[in-house]
């Protein structure tokens, strides 16, 4: 025990705590101050954002107001404006006396009502209460009822004396209850009548004002200085407060958060997205506000206000499209949801369109979402779909499998029913009495009818599979034909050097060991067809072939040339090295008709049929869409190659010319090592296993593997896969810490998220194998490296990120039931066959051909037709026929049915019936045409009218036949527009009328002359010299011409042709 000096006081009693208490109290005070700061600013950064926004926006508005005022003053000084303004004043003055009179009347009525109201309320209250009491007295209590009734009548009889206002001062008037009631109603009725009368009175003044407003609006679009001043006032007086959008769709959860719908407070910081502060007509950028360099100024308004029109903020908020934590406000990181525990982080700029995909998964093309559209295009074009199932994309193979199963099931049912019939009949024969016997016979009879109905069902299923077989397209070529098509040595080289040999190819680069390459090549080679042999072709004219290739439209899909010399579309293969690998004879057949097969494939027998199968049944070896049933079992066969490439209906000579040109396209030093191992039968089985393993049959038709499924994982909901389900392998920790596989720091920080996974996987699918010990190559990740660049990766990542398991309510999904459904379905077909390579379909969209050098300037008129108004232009019945047979002829195929004068040719796509239906509906819907189509009646022409119309038709001011084709070869040499004889079946009269009066409006830049007619007294009158016999005609000239065109006969046209001199002219 320590010895303490005796004088020392007891520390418990004597030690002063003042200092300690002071410090503690000070600390407490400091902490309270801190918490107050945190409460008002630290946790509420939006306050300072709003403050700053208020000041920068006010400055901006002041500047705008000043500019606008100056502009307005200039405009106000113009005589036009002053004239209109004077008109407003005159009209206003004219209306003034009557207006004043009405106002006085209304004012009197208002005063009367004001006097009347208190006694009326008093009386009504009394009478109402007494009436209720009366009603409550039971019927049997007669005396009470009678006395209450008396009370009620007394109450009604009470009179009120009022100083009743009249036009000349007031006078005393007595009112009982009924008077009050009636007068009140009368006053209200009279006032309503007066108000509406005043409106009529003002009409001319209002019209004048509207004319003035329109005048100003046309010259000075945007907000006027008064509007801007109003904005400035509301901004200056803006409360600094939390702004939120609440959406509570009934019975649903948005983002599953909190279970009570959506609460988005994004506008608290992103102030300018509030339409009350920044109207949709303004788009505000940081540069406008003078804070362009400031990265902490979230003051831009929504850059695409059109999007907000379809997606109003009060229904969609912000976070359902953009992601992020709409409720969080304390830090940027939290609000944007970019932290571990928020499952819907804000999409990065490169992936904004992912938000669209959440609801627009069923669309091939989504307006305003170019990145997403590109992603979907790539997903199909690069063959991702060959391995990865994705709902909404082509699933004909699945449907076909289901259909086949149904057919098989139906057949076995039919068989068992057939067996049952004799048994039932026998039972009937043996029955003890007639009733029982009849019962059995009846059952047997019912079964025969059932069998008949099964037959019709099976017939439908066969038709369906016929359609489906026609629709199934593979991304890559048919490898059954490989022996006829390809030089043997090229195959193993290609497998190893895919992207080197053809840098633009769709085929991904597989990670193959040399022995795997050999085995795969050997299997492909040995399993391919060897005959019947192709006909030998003589060489063609390569120069002419080149001309054809460049003019027939091949370049809408294909490209030629390498590197910077590449010209043409990217939809199909680059043809510049075709000569190094292809056989000439095969190429001729392919160019002539790419759908032609060597042998038909029977899905039921699971083999390719040959001439011997047909011979057995005494049939010629002919198979095409019209002869698509198997001679052996009657089921549908695969009679075409599964390629989207259409037939251009070229003559065999032209095909040879093109093939000769293509076969000459090769590098002079092209050389491939001999590959004798490909004939080694020992390699075949190993090759087959590898081909199955790598999923080659997803993109290619391969003998023996026709029924292979997709080897990859389904990606329909990949965007909502929990991060734990994605294997970052040895990079898990690095991803969490923002370190790239190459050891460098990432720019965006940690990439342990779906975006990071997808991007790294797409750039190098083997990345998650790095560092892993996998001695057996088959244990490695098998995804091949797709041929994509950085933008492509962004696009595909965007698509995947948005492909979520509906985190939004079902009614947010874009699944229109009206004609837009036709548009939605149609885009899948349009993109599948690359219609947009040649045609402009969507307003503003450019086709591939439009960008090629041979279609510039004057030569634009050689382009295929613009289809933006196709649905309004043509008769859908005609369109159906045209799509099925663009030559519009069964005999003369080497031509274009409508625009025979164009070099570029509408090919035959061999669409299935279903595809044709979809396309027709698509065009109809795109042009807002009612469905089903009911043709518009065209009034027949009287003889006089016919004469007038003929004169107009052949008028020298509008020589229609100068440009339009007629079918006479001599004349058509110079034709640049379609034949009128087609009009009757092809066109819609209403569209034709609009077209001939103002074609520039429908297709800007068309060669069809505008201004042929002018508007006069509500109808169209010919602009040129009016023919003699029409001088007195009071009808519509354009209408007359349309009716004439729709009744034109070949004889008539031939007759007219003689009258019009044929000169070179161009028109559409």
């Amino acid at each position: 025990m320590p010895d303490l000096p005796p004088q020392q006081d007891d520390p418990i009693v004597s030690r002063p705590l003042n200092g300690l208490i002071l410090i503690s109290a000070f600390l407490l005070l400091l902490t309270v101050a801190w918490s107050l700061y945190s409460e008002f600013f630290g946790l509420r950064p939006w306050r300072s954002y709003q403050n700053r926004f208020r000041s920068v926006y006010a400055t901006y508005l002041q500047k705008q107001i000043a500019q606008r005022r100056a502009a307005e003053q200039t405009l106000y000084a113009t005589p036009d404006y002053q004239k209109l303004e004077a008109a407003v004043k005159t009209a206003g003055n004219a209306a003034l006396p009557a207006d004043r009179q009405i106002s006085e009347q209304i004012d009197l009525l208002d005063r009367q009502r004001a006097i009347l109201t208190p006694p009326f309320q008093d009386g009504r209250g009394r009478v109402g209460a007494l009436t209720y009491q009366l009603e409550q007295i039971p019927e049997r209590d007669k005396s009470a009822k009678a006395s209450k009734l008396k009370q009620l009548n007394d109450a009604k009889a009470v009179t009120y004396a009022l100083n009743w206002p009249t036009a000349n001062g007031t006078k005393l008037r007595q009112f009982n209850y009924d008077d009050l009631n009636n007068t009140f109603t009368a006053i209200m009725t009279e006032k309503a009548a007066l108000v509406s009368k005043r409106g009529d009175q003002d009409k001319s003044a209002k019209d004048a004002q509207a004319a003035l407003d329109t005048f100003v609006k046309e010259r000075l679009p945007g907000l006027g200085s008064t509007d801007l001043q109003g904005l400035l006032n509301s901004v200056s007086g803006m409360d600094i407060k939390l702004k939120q959008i609440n959406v509570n769709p009934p019975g649903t959860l948005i983002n599953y958060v909190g279970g009570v719908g959506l609460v988005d407070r994004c506008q608290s910081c992103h102030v300018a997205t509030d339409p009350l502060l920044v109207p949709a007509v303004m788009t505000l950028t940081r540069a406008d506000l003078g804070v362009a360099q400031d990265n902490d100024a979230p003051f831009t308004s929504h850059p695409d206000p059109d999007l907000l029109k379809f997606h109003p903020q009060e229904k969609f908020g912000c976070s359902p499209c953009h992601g992020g934590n709409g409720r969080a406000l304390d830090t940027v990181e939290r609000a944007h949801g970019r932290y571990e525990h928020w499952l819907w982080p804000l999409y990065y700029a490169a992936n904004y369109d992912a938000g669209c995909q959440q609801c627009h998964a069923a669309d091939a093309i989504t307006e305003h979402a170019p990145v997403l559209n590109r992603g979907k295009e790539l997903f199909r074009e690069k063959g991702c779909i060959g391995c990865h199932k994705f709902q909404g994309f082509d699933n004909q193979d699945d449907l076909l499998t289901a259909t086949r199963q149904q057919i098989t099931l139906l057949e076995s049912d039919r068989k068992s029913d057939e067996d049952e019939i004799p048994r039932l009949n026998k039972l009937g024969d043996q029955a003890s009495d007639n009733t029982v016997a009849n019962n059995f016979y009846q059952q047997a009879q019912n079964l025969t009818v059932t069998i008949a109905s099964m037959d019709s069902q099976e017939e439908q299923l066969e038709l369906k599979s016929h359609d489906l077989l026609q629709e199934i397209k593979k991304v890559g070529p048919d490898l059954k034909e490989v022996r006829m098509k390809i030089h043997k040595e090229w195959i193993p080289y290609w497998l190893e050097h895919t992207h080197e040999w053809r840098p633009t190819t769709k085929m991904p680069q597989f990670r193959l060991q040399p022995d795997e390459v050999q085995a795969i090549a050997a299997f492909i080679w040995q399993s391919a067809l060897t005959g019947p042999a192709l006909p030998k072709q003589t060489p063609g004219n390569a120069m002419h072939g080149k001309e054809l290739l460049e003019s027939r439209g091949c370049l809408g899909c294909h490209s030629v040339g390498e590197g910077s010399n590449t010209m043409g579309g990217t939809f199909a293969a680059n043809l510049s090295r075709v000569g190094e690998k292809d056989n000439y004879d095969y190429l001729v057949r392919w160019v002539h008709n790419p759908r032609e097969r060597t042998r038909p494939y029977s899905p039921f027998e699971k083999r390719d049929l040959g001439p011997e199968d047909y011979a057995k049944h005494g049939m010629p070896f002919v198979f095409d869409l019209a002869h698509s049933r198997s001679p052996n079992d009657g089921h549908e066969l695969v009679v075409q190659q599964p390629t989207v490439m259409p037939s251009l209906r070229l003559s065999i000579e032209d095909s040879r010319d093109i093939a000769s040109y293509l076969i000459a396209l090769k590098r002079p030093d092209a050389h491939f090592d001999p590959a004798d191992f490909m004939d080694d039968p020992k390699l075949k089985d190993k090759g087959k296993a590898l081909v199955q393993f790598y999923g080659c049959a997803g993109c290619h038709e391969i003998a023996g593997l026709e029924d292979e499924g997709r080897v990859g994982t389904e990606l329909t909901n990949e965007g909502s896969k929990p991060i734990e389900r994605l294997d970052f392998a040895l990079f898990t920790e690095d991803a969490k810490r923002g370190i790239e596989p190459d050891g460098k720091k990432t720019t965006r920080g940690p990439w342990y998220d779906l975006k990071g996974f997808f991007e790294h996987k797409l750039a190098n699918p083997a990345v998650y194998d790095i560092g892993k010990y996998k001695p057996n190559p088959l244990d490695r990740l098998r995804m091949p490296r797709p041929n994509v660049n950085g933008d492509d990766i962004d696009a595909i990542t965007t698509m995947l990120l948005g492909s979520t398991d509906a985190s939004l309510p079902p009614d947010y999904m874009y699944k229109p039931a009206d004609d837009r459904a036709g548009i939605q379905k149609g885009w899948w077909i349009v993109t599948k066959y690359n219609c947009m390579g040649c045609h402009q379909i969507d307003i503003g969209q450019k086709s591939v051909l439009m960008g090629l050098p041979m279609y510039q300037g004057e030569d634009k008129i050689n382009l295929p037709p613009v289809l933006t108004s196709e649905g309004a232009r043509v008769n859908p019945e005609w369109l159906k026929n045209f799509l099925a047979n663009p030559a519009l002829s069964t005999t003369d195929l080497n031509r274009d049915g409508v625009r025979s004068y164009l070099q570029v040719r509408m090919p035959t796509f061999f669409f299935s019936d279903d595809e044709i239906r979809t396309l027709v509906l698509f065009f109809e819907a795109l042009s807002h045409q009612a469905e089903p189509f009911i043709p518009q009646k065209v009034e027949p022409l009287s003889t006089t009218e016919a004469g007038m119309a003929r004169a107009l038709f052949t008028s020298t001011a509008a020589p229609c036949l100068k440009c339009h084709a007629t079918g006479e070869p001599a004349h058509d040499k110079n034709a640049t527009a379609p034949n009128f004889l087609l009009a009757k079946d092809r066109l819609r009269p209403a569209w034709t009328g609009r077209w001939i009066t103002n074609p520039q409006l429908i297709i800007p830049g068309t060669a069809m002359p505008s201004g042929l007619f002018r508007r006069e007294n509500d109808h169209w009158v010919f602009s040129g010299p009016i023919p003699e016999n029409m001088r007195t005609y009071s009808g519509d000239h354009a209408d007359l011409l349309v009716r004439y065109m729709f009744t034109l006969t070949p004889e008539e046209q031939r007759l007219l042709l003689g009258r019009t001199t044929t000169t070179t002219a161009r028109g559409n």
Partner: protein
Amino acid sequence: MLGDWHQLWEIVSAPDNVPIVALLFLVPFYVWYAFRQARANDELIEKLEADPAAAKTAHRKTQPYHPKWDREVHTWPYLMRVEFVAAILVTVLLMVWSLTLNAPLEEPSNPNVTMNPAKAPWYFLGLQEMLVYFDPWIAGVVMPTLIIIGLMCIPYIDANPLGNGYYTYKQRRFAIWTFSLGFIGLWVVMISIGTFIRGPGWMWFWPTSTWDAERVEYAVNRNLDTIPGVVTGGLFQINGSWVAHLLPTANRDYAPILARIIFGIFPVAIYFMVASYAVYLVMNSTNFAQRIFRRMTLLQIVTTDLLLVLMLALPVKILLRLIFRIKYIWVTPWFSI
């Protein structure tokens, strides 16, 4: 691989783990502080025992002490003002804590994905750690119940009248050791293990090694009755052939399992006997202890012994598991030990 300081920082800086980091410092500090006071008091007691006169003048039995000081002081202001300062400082601490660290809220739970590691709140981590050594029935239900019953029993089995109201070690050596073993040695240590050592897959990661969810380790455990060599031949043959003879033919299939159950009883029983005797020895290890022991009734002795034996079972099992990779000693279809 050690040396991943980033990982260590992530663990200790997680808002969830802040109380445990504090615990690591506060528990040793207060233990030291209490023992310092106890030691001083023990010295004072010794001195006063030696000097009966001084004992009569009587002083606070706390250190420091001076004869001139009052024997008692008033609660107000002398105690209250200290408590007031303490209250202010704790308030400051809690406010700063709540301002700087947000509540560790996570995403809405997804029933299809289990987080890895899935950890209980820090105060339950000891229980969760126990699940490694016992089956859920024992670790999750029986043991926690026993802990609570044991705590409730303390006033009734404590026969030592000394050491109330002041810190002392010498007078309550047994109680202090029991507490230190149970609370610090087991509870606090298990919480620390659960917090800092157990990573993904509840695998053992030494501090500063990376918590790699992909890690694969050899951690195959076996039940005592399956270890070759432990049970061979004779009566305890696990194939149960000897039990089969005793069973009706229809039930012969149950023989192996029955044999295992019967086998398991023996090691457990042996442990109970040995441990009880060891506890008995400890309770009589000194004269002082013997005096207390003699004051106890039979019920008190049996309860104390039983509770201590059960408590000791935990470290024993931990060692068996970690060193000998033994999963269960006694396996039955209903519970395992």
